[in-house]
């Protein structure tokens, strides 16, 4: 199997505090990799290092074959990122956001036109194209945000709690988009607090207090802890956490 993310003892310290402690794992091409953990476990911290937004304190990692220290800019061409905090421009319209980010990623005018038409079609946002993004409901914002993150057809997309605060119907639609992306060959790295979503992942890692405590398929994890749901797996593992608020 092709490895698209490889980390070795990746660590991030903020002063004395170790937010991510020697995390080591591999992610394979084409899979949906679930990155689970309680609040404050260090998921966002780890993801930001993988995206080249934050420099690790120690450890190594390669993303799409590029070294995170030396080839950060190469990595950025090959990944998409959807941050935990909504971060498209609220004072630009749907279309303007799509054009802007597409343009920054170097899409040609023709590509931009095709892509944005296709994207708007898929999201069913025809009548919203000229609306300011700030005025859209959260679910739509999130779907748009995801679509913009994969506009340049990256090898990997990082999603930080993409469905936080979104209603169940929209969450289903969101996961349809994720599957569509996977079908087109994109590897998905996703964090979530919803255990039903965890079941949709090919493999899952569980982070507790900055460390990876478990990593396997949902089925194997349930078996290992002799429980029937991911909820219980999560509970078993996160119970001992000190950081959880």
């Amino acid at each position: 199997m092709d490895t698209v993310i490889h980390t070795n003892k990746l660590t991030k310290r903020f002063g004395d505090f170790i937010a991510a402690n020697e995390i080591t794992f591999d992610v394979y091409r084409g899979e949906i990799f679930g990155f689970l953990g309680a609040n404050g476990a260090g998921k966002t911290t780890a993801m930001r290092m993988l995206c080249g937004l934050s420099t690790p304190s120690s450890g190594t990692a390669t993303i799409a074959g590029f070294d995170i220290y030396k080839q950060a800019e190469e990595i950025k061409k090959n990944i998409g990122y959807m941050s935990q905090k909504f971060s498209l421009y609220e004072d630009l319209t749907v279309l303007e956001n799509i054009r802007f980010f597409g343009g920054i990623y170097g899409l040609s005018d023709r590509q931009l036109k095709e892509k944005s038409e296709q994207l708007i079609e898929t999201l069913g946002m025809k009548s919203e194209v000229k609306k300011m993004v700030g005025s859209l409901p959260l679910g739509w914002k999130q779907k748009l945000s995801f679509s913009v993150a994969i506009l340049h057809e990256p090898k990997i997309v990082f999603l930080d709690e993409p469905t936080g605060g979104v209603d169940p119907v929209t969450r289903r639609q969101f996961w349809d988009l994720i599957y569509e992306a996977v079908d087109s060959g994109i590897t998905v790295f996703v964090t979530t607090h919803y255990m039903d979503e965890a079941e949709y992942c090919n493999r899952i890692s569980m982070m507790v207090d900055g460390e990876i405590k478990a990593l396997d398929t949902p089925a194997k994890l349930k078996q290992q802890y002799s429980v029937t749901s991911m909820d219980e797996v999560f509970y078993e593992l996160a119970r001992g956490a000190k950081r959880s608020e």
Partner: protein
Amino acid sequence: MRTLKFLLRKEFKQIFRNKALLPMLFVVPIMQLLILPLAADYEVKNINITIVDQDHSAYSQKLISKIMASGYFRLASYATGFNDAFDDVENDRSDLILEIPQGFERNLIRENEQQLYMAVNAINGVKANLGGTYLNRIIADYNADVRLEWVQMSKFNRLPTIEIVSSNWFNPTMNYRFYMVPGILALLVTMIGAYMCALNIVKEKEKGTIEQINVTPIKKYQFILGKLIPFWVIGIVVFTMGLFGIGWLVYGIAPIGSLLLLYAYLSVYLIAVLGLGLLISTYAETQQQAMSIAFFFMMIFILMSGLFTSIDGMPEWAYIMTKFSPITYFIEVMRMIVLKGSAFSDIKSHFLIMVGFAVSLNGWAIYNYKKTS
């Protein structure tokens, strides 16, 4: 280039959509240019003066007529003694007393030294103090005349020739608006440049949109140019509005010197000021922090700029500090080109210093701006 095009298009769209920002950029500066020069007009006329002439000489007469000819003073009365004069002040008939002691002419010629006594009415302090300042200047001017005469008579020079350079010599009518408007315009352009640039970038930090930019393969210089160019353009537009729309049309200040030179200097100056804004944005995490830091610098720069306070009157350490404030140079250059018609050779050192500011502030900011934290 293509990336920059997208960045600029986005930035201009956002600026023109910001309903709070637009008036800040275009209406407020105009209002300030209309109001501030009036408020900051220190010129006072019709200062009542009481003169006590104990000397009754040709010299004292000459001094008095010179004072009266200046146009600032109105003779309240001639008093015979200081006590009489004091009554005038006490009854608010007079703002200022000038006493010319006996032997004024003689002492001036023999010893070339003579004291005059001046008393000001503390009730209307501003008027009287300004009167005192004017009077001082007139006397200094007069004194130089006297010395000149005297030196010629004696045919040898025991005195250091004191050159009196009036700071208003290129503003012969002493019209304070001529003096203030270019300075205030310089100040406004500075504030707009530094504040807007800093706040704009920090806002992206606060909203988190900068993360979305930093995770793209965008180059540092592209992002920075995308921020600098729009505010540079706005700075030029606001300046032009102020210079022609207000300075020329309202105050009748037609620039004497080369406009090309003025705009060339403005261009470099704006780059320096925007560099400061950029630098502030790399240190501030919130708009509030950016505001505080920018405010701190602006206060120092304004106080040190010589706009509202005279640089000549500053203590040594403060005088040295004015050299570190870019706005000092711009105000000077503005006055030199607009009022005096100075040429490039006159402001060459100002130019070099400003290039230095622009390079160091931007260099520091670019070094400090990190796509990765």
